[in-house]
């Protein structure tokens, strides 16, 4: 009813607002942007074995990454894993998010807590769970052998499959929670309106629910994709030393090789690839649905 735009209460001074917001802003700006700038500077330095890091202004670290098939392979594998995991999370996450968003049950809060709990427990613990399942004498192989379906244990530990399953399970809660909050914002009666106009469940989903949930789908997809691209604990524990992804590769350069310039460059490539692919996905989705 009010015609007035929301307005600062008379007496609220901008000086006060500044005093409130400036400390956090300075802290994040210095703590986030400063380090990234220094990292970028490091990535242009030279690394000479035995001499450690030498100040320079060279792109040789980037050249080294993109000319060595080994590193390119790691990047391609990382992107592949991230894309598969993100799609799987979307497909697996939507039904669960929908059910939680629409349930009238008094157990709704319990359901949400069951999804948040694994998120809070951390990646290493969850990887430990999968290690218990996947081992040669783990729950999976033991069950199949007990049922007489296989004679020899199937190798799952230290394969891409194990890593995919691990990352999907790690990221799924993020997707579910993001989608759930968006679906809850979509009034139930637009679905009912679609049904009353003759749309079946699949037409309703395609024409009404999906387009309305798109902002959440996009947000959830971006979040899970970023997390998958940068996974560390899961590939290390479930993929083993031979299954290299970008996250462990960066850590190795810093912690084991002490090659900061090259590690910095890989870190930057990882960040840039993540951002570029995220933006690309954003644009494709926008073009298709706007």
């Amino acid at each position, binding site marked *: 009813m009010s015609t007035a735009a929301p307005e600062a209460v008379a007496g609220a001074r901008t000086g*006060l607002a500044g005093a409130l917001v400036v400390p956090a*802003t300075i802290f994040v700006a210095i703590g986030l942007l400063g380090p*990234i700038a220094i990292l970028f500077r490091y990535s242009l330095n030279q690394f000479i074995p035995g001499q450690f890091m030498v100040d320079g202004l060279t792109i040789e670290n980037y050249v080294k990454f993109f000319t060595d098939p080994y590193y390119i392979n790691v990047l391609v594998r990382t992107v592949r894993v991230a894309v598969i995991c993100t799609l799987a999370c979307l497909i697996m996450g939507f039904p669960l998010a929908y059910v939680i968003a629409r349930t009238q049950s008094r157990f709704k809060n319990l359901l949400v807590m069951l999804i948040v709990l694994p998120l809070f427990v*951390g990646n290493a613990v969850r990887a*430990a769970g999968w290690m*218990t399942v996947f081992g040669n004498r783990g729950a999976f192989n033991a069950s199949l052998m007990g049922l007489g379906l296989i004679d020899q244990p199937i190798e799952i530990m230290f394969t891409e499959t194990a890593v995919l399953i691990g990352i999907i399970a790690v990221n799924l809660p993020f997707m579910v929670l993001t989608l759930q*909050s968006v679906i809850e914002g979509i009034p139930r009666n637009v679905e009912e309106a679609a049904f009353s106009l003759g749309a079946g469940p699949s037409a309703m989903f395609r024409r009404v629910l999906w387009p309305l949930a798109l902002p959440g789908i996009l947000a959830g997809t971006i979040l899970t994709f970023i997390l998958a691209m*940068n996974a560390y604990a899961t590939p290390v524990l479930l993929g083993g030393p031979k299954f290299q992804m970008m996250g462990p590769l960066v850590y190795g350069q810093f912690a084991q090789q002490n090659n900061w310039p090259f590690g910095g460059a890989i870190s930057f490539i990882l960040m840039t690839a993540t951002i570029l692919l995220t933006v690309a996905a954003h644009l494709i989705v926008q073009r298709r649905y706007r």
Partner: protein
Amino acid sequence: MSTPRTSFGRMALNGAAGLSLGFILLPLIFVTWLAFFRQEIPSFPPEGYSLKWFSAVPGNKNFVEGFVLSLQVGVLATLIGLLLGVPASLALVRHRIALGPAVNTLLLLPLVMPGIVLGTSLYVFQIETEIATGLPLLGSLAGLVAAHTLVVVPWVVRLVTASLQGSDRSIEEAAQNLGAGPLTTFWRITLPSIRPGIVAAGLFGFVTSFGNLEMSLFLVGPGRITLPIAILQYLEWKIDPTVAAASVIQIVLIGAAMIITDRYVKLSRVV
């Protein structure tokens, strides 16, 4: 109302949802199971059950010290994060400030910044700061707390701004209309009305810090590792019921924290 077809669709939907939920919970279920095995090797089916591994956890120096450090860092980072984030949220929602949207984006940025990138960049930043000031930052408690504060702030800003936007602005006006000045209005009206958001922000901030692995990997020093790193290093070596028992203790503590928080603020409303 429900035809056979729609009830079948309903079942399929619930089934798919149940499978996904099971998939999320599966690793926790198995790690909990393993913690009660009698034998040390994680082979199925177990030879029997025992509680002995839980008594082995306190004997592991890395787990105990890691837990203490994670707790210290989590509590400190959460408190500092709240002190920085709550006033900032207030300014962002209640006042028109220059570059408001840009500031908002900046404050949320650490949330989407990959842990590996944060870790590497903070690592080199702390090295440069050490060189410049001579203060031993890298591997110190202060350095770790500062880094963790960086990932706590966006959670605080996100949850507290949402809470502020959801709280009825007119109750603040009502207070002023009844004679309360700005400070009184804040303490007596605004703060109580966003308390759920602040509690949730504290919980999320703490748990984000407590569970942080990737960033912390780069910032811990010798003899000073956090619990997730202790667990990771143990798992790189082997998996056995001892590490499972340590994990179960962590699951129970976090679960308890969630249930306590849930009494103040329904998690399904803030996540």
